[in-house]
């Protein structure tokens, strides 16, 4: 039996939403097979990986902590990718947000909360924007590929942070560990639900997702970004400046990544260390695509991918599987998602096993 892909001629709305669901199912099945190969019972494995971490209020708190940066970065990337601007370096913008905002927090520890905290957040946003601005300049002035430049800047950002916390910003009372002093309480993200670790960042992530949803769908700017992404020549025909839109897309996603970075270090971490991100900026790429490049979808995708981090920890502890399970799960998910997305514009058509003879009749 042979199959052939046939263009549908239009987008199948059903598959726009069914494709991620199918991809998730296929990913779970494949992960279970992988567990079996590694000698862990598959059913117990997947339970440990995806369900056990959610049980109890501690589980929800942990999930919110992990999901917050993913959602914040993911909505910015979704907007960027809709505009055909391929910012892969959110991890670097995240790090620079942590550095600039964290630097402010370290240097003015005694300023009052209502001055220091907003300034620290703003510093974080500007740090992320500044790092993305390098990409924007290289793209608009020299037409340098943003995938390469933004990715390479990620490594520069990571090494810059390592240098800062091992030398100039190292905590003098830190027993020589490469990390900064703890931030003062005036530069700490406040908890909004007492008794949990759910902080202001989670609320901000949801509000920003709603705001971006409106901007993309209803504003002229969002329309311009979508046209630039879908049909660059049509954007030129309409008179939308391509360079301006590249700048806007990179500033929004860079700023959101920087904000995520500063909230991460002023919240859960509480100081600058050699590594402030376990690859959130890269995982957020999967979050953006799994969320259909829609801000609301990104919220759900962010929660699922956050769960994969928690599950990786749980699998390591309970099943003695390597922590790399998280990365493998994320990779398999992206792979299946891109594969399933083909069903949005194409359908499978079964070919008859042998060419069916066309009804023929003798001619006189």
């Amino acid at each position, binding site marked *: 039996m042979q199959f052939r892909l046939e263009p549908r*001629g*239009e*987008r199948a709305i059903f598959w726009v939403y069914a494709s991620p669901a199918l991809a998730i199912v296929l990913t779970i099945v494949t992960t279970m097979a992988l567990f079996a190969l590694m000698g862990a019972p598959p059913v117990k494995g997947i339970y440990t990986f995806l369900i056990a971490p959610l049980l109890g209020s501690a589980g929800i708190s942990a999930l919110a902590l992990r999901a917050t940066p993913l959602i914040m970065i993911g909505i910015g990337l979704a907007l960027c990718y809709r505009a055909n601007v391929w910012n892969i370096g959110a991890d670097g913008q995240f790090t620079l947000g942590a550095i600039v905002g964290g630097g402010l927090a370290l240097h003015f520890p005694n300023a009052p909360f209502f001055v220091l905290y907003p300034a620290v957040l703003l510093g974080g946003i500007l740090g992320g924007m500044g790092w993305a601005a390098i990409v924007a300049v290289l793209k608009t002035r020299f037409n340098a590929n943003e995938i390469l430049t933004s990715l390479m800047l990620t490594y520069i950002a990571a090494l810059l942070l390592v240098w800062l916390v091992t030398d100039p910003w190292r905590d003098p009372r830190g027993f020589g560990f490469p990390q900064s002093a703890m931030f003062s309480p005036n530069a700490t993200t406040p908890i909004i639900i007492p008794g949990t670790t759910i902080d202001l960042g989670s609320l901000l992530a949801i509000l920003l997702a709603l705001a971006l949803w409106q901007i993309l769908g*209803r*504003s*002229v*700017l969002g*329309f311009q970004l*979508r*046209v630039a992404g*879908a*049909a660059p*020549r*049509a954007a*030129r*025909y*309409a*008179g939308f*400046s391509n360079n301006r839109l590249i700048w806007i897309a990179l500033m929004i996603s860079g700023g959101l990544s920087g904000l995520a970075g500063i909230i991460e270090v002023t919240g859960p971490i509480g100081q600058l260390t050699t590594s402030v991100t376990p690859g959130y900026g890269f995982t957020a790429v999967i979050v953006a695509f799994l969320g259909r490049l829609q801000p609301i979808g990104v919220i759900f995708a962010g929660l699922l991918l956050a769960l994969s981090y928690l599950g990786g920890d749980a699998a390591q502890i309970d099943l003695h599987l390597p922590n790399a399970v998280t990365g493998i799960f994320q990779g398999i998910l992206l792979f299946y998602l891109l594969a399933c997305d083909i069903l949005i514009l194409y359908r499978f058509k079964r070919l008859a096993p042998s*060419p*069916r*003879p*066309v*009804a*023929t*009749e*003798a*001619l006189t």
Partner: protein
Amino acid sequence: MMAMGAAGRYPGATPLLHLQGIVKQFPGCRANDDVDLSIAPHEIHALLGENGAGKSTLVKIIYGVMKPDAGSIAWQGKPALIGSPAQARALGIGMVFQHFSLFEALTVTENVALGLTDKADRVGLADRIADISRRYGLPLDPARSVHDLSVGERQRIEIVRCLLQKPKLLIMDEPTSVLTPQEVFHLFATLRRLADEGCSILYISHKLEEIRALCRRATIMRLGKVVAECIPAEKSARELAELMISARLQPQSFAHSIDNQGTPRLVLDRLTIRSNQQFGTDLKDISLSIAAGEILGIAGIAGNGQSELMDALSGEIPAGRPETITLDGMPIGHDGPRDRRRRGCCFLPEERNGHGAVTSMTLAENGFLSGHVRGALQRLGLIDRRRTGEFARAIIKAFDVRTTGPEAEARSLSGGNLQKFLIGREMLQQPTLLMLNQPTWGVDAGAAAAIYEAIVALARNGAAVLIISQDLDEILMLCDRIAVIASGRVSVPIPVRDATIEQIGLQMGGTAMPDHNVKLPETRYAVSA
């Protein structure tokens, strides 16, 4: 005449190809409904019909690209199964497509060699190409690179490619839409000779005069059905057109010869622009002016700088100096498309998909794309959804766009329907200067008539209109003055009533054409009676 005589020698012969009761159903549309077609040996047979009448589907079935749902095919009297283009070629069916599949950077011989499956065929290929091109009057240098060749020469490559296979039936899909009148004359001579030597030709077109001149018999299709089979030379063009489209044609006399050469609205002063495309055409020293109420047509063969000229007029490519382009005396050469729209210009490029429209967006959004400046469709940085929807609905109503409504995706519309929507979008913005590139490309005759009427009405109300078109008949019917674009230069516009086909044809060929001093017959095409 040769074709007629040749076919006449074999009156009762078995048909070369005989289709009976062909049915092809697509979702929501029966493209072929019980179609019969019979082509005799030595015959040049026309397949005539509007866009969407089912011609292409039928041809794809004959060439093995599609399988029919029902019906029979007989080749030389025997039932045949044509499962693929390769099988069609093995039977002796060749096809020249409307859109060529040639690699610009390769030579003629290399391009032909790429289509050959058997390596042994490549031996001495250049000699055989030269031999065939000499025998059939298709001048072609096998060693030249394709990007240096005119469209007419490119078509000859495709024809030679078919003739190398010694076909018994040659299918030609709209072959003359890209040719000068002189090239058409040569092509017809070649086709008649081919038919005389035993190769039947299935000639697909909607150009009635050509079919009357060339074809011995014609099968006319409408909405998937065969509505008539006739001898085209015995019918007038008007009768053929009436068979082809359902409504009776209104007599068209748009020639509204205005002699007011009032203040020019748009003036181009030595416009020179480098193309931003590889193998594009640079614009050289273009000067012209259009007055209010006037329709100026720019004729020319595709690829001679039309799209670059449109980009320069719309502001997508800025002019060198602001004064190079002036609108009502204001220099606008450096203005972008939005500023030009604000000043009263509306324009539509040739390419619909991804240039004039975003196919993945809805009609309402596509209306907003160019209509938001003049239609005031935005408020406080937000899209005014109510007014945007109303604008799209107004276009759909005024131009009879067949669609489910403003929320339909542009890609769900047929090409002609989308073109109607886009033309309507520009027209309903009350432009003072309207510029259109290939306004009726892929639009059926009925819709084209509606577009023509709207253009004329707009001009009567005082708008200046510029039309860039490959369809010479369209320009002659619609425009007050005509100019010709060739190799990026535009000739001095002359009144249409003073223009002769010969003169325009020579200008269209430019200086690059080797065979432009051909002697044309008295009438446009020799009608074999």
